[in-house]
């Protein structure tokens, strides 16, 4: 990334994030993949199971992000992470609101609600890279 953490802090952050985030992220990816490639039958039990798995993994990821952010000991970086999450939320709401209005008043194709989370993550990631790059410490 575009920041210089001390090795100890870097290792601790990475360990903490990976341990908590990847299990729920894997469930999310697997369920999304199954939805997209298996096309479960309408009203089938598989569709319900996948939908509930997706919802639970999403809640898990959001809770994990919140917990990791709360426990982040570097307060300046915590501030940058919160700023990037705010950008992600604002971006997602702007895009989905605009798209929703277009769906009502024009012939634009409906945007699957499934896309909300990826939109949030992509905008948050872009904001995080930008914010960390803008706040990169100068050479001493």
């Amino acid at each position, binding site marked *: 990334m575009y920041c210089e953490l001390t090795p100890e802090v870097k290792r601790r952050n990475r360990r903490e994030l990976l341990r908590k985030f990847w299990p729920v992220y894997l469930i999310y990816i697997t369920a999304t993949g199954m939805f997209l490639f298996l096309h479960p039958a309408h009203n089938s039990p598989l569709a319900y199971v996948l939908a509930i798995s997706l919802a639970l993994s999403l809640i898990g990821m959001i809770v994990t992000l919140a917990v990791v952010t709360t426990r982040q000991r*570097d*307060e300046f970086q915590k501030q940058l992470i919160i700023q990037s999450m705010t950008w992600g939320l604002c971006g997602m709401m702007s895009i989905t609101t605009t798209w929703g209005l277009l769906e009502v008043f024009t012939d634009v194709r409906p945007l699957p609600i499934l896309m909300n989370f990826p939109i949030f993550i992509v905008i948050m990631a872009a904001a995080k890279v930008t914010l960390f790059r803008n706040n990169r*410490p100068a050479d001493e």
Partner: protein
Amino acid sequence: MNNRLRVMRAERRWSQADLAQRLEVSRQSINAIETGKYDPSLPLAFKLARLFDTTIEAIFTDEPRQTA
């Protein structure tokens, strides 16, 4: 908020990385505090004061930053 962190650090011949290591924060945080982009929380300010064996007021002032 203005601060004397850069001067006090230089007096001890510590780099930003040294100070970051002592405070268990990133060098990015030290740089942000020194350049006035970020005001630390009270716990971090106390930690800084203890590390430099002084008071918070000796490090931070609410006088506006002087521009060159």
